[in-house]
């Protein structure tokens, strides 16, 4: 018997989620608006000290990105769980972990990517030097997919609960900390003119580990939530 193509399944999950997101454009703005608001409120709160702002900016941007990512995570499996399409996705001959990876990829394209794209603008607002902006950009590129992938495990665990929001944050935030530490470490080192390759290698390692390892626990957690 012929098996349906796995790549085709992966792409159709991504495409379906992108189409759905396009039909709910207003919801796409939420994490982005949150991100921009938090980052722009900081200078108003701490005062117009250029030196201070330049120093705290990378940290502020990273914390805001992390919280924005957390904010958008809850929707990852919610609607599929509620209308029963998750059940059908579990009941396919394809490995659920691959379909999970497809869903997380689509989710990152919609929630992580816009944050990364708008970051140079916000960084310019804080008067960060251009080569530091480059490093900040790279850390976000390596780091935000890790946030989505790790968050997916916790979302899969809590999707069956009616009020899983706080639990989700408690489960996920400790796991986000290493990403935050290495990312801000890299940006700090870049600002001080030190080499950053160590931190970037570490973040790349985290990204590849997350891509290869997190879909399995996520798939297992989804099966548990459904049974």
């Amino acid at each position, binding site marked *: 018997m012929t098996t349906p193509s796995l790549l085709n*399944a992966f792409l*159709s999950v991504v495409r379906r989620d992108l189409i*759905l997101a396009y039909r709910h454009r207003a919801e796409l703005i939420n994490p982005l608006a949150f991100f921009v608001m938090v980052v722009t409120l900081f200078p108003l709160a701490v005062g117009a000290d250029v030196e201070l702002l330049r120093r705290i900016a990378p940290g502020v941007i990273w914390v805001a990105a992390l919280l924005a990512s957390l904010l958008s995570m809850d929707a990852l499996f919610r609607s599929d769980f509620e209308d029963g*399409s998750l*059940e*059908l996705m579990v009941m396919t001959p394809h490995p659920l972990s691959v379909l999970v990876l497809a869903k997380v990829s689509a989710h990152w394209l919609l929630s992580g990517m816009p944050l990364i794209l708008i970051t140079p603008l916000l960084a310019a607002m804080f008067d960060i030097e251009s080569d530091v902006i480059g490093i900040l950009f790279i850390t976000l590129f390596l780091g935000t997919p890790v946030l989505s992938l790790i968050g997916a495990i916790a979302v899969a665990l809590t999707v069956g609960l009616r009020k899983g929001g706080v639990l989700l944050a408690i489960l996920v935030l400790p796991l986000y900390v290493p990403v935050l530490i290495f990312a801000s470490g890299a940006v700090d080192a870049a600002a001080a003119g030190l080499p950053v390759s160590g931190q970037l290698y570490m973040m790349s390692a985290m990204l590849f580990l997350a891509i290869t390892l997190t879909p399995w626990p996520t798939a297992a957690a989804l099966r548990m939530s459904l049974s």
Partner: protein
Amino acid sequence: MTTRPLFEARQLACIRDDRVLFSGLDFQVQGGQVLLIEGPNGSGKTSLLRILTGLRNPDEGELVWCGTTVVELAALFYQDVAYVGHMNGMKDDLSVTENLKFTQALAIAALSIDEGLRKVGLDGYQDTPIRYLSAGQRRRLALARLLCTQKRLWILDEPFTSLDKASIKMFESYIEDHVAAGGITIMTSHHDTGLPAHIVQKIELRP
């Protein structure tokens, strides 16, 4: 169709909230048969069906599909299983065609989408988003989903809910066709089915 498929349950038990819904349940269904599960509300019909689909693990016992346990088959089992549950599993914001295309992308296609829709009387609704369909139309779309993918085992949970008499007849005739082609259907229903008695095997669950 190579060999006639065979689905066996051995000593199934289901426990929910410390209550034993059923235990020691055995049955065998062959290609060409319909297994009708009957029982009052709360007797565990849906739980049984969810166990049969593999969505839920039985608390005891095992399921065997064509000689291999479902646990061993894992994802391969789902090449053969189609499930229609209480929820239709369709995306409200996608059109009828988009939904069916997605279903087909995850399985092996049988009928074309247009043909499937024509067979369930939804021709002309191709581009309508699901949210504009009535409950009965959504149910018929779930039937179209069965027809558009090639699965040997249909597991249907109350498939006739919100369907009118004509649609129930139509649904039943497609179940008969499916079974006549060597497939298996396992279903629950509160309605009396018009399926011919010689192909129907009944199980009654008592609370």
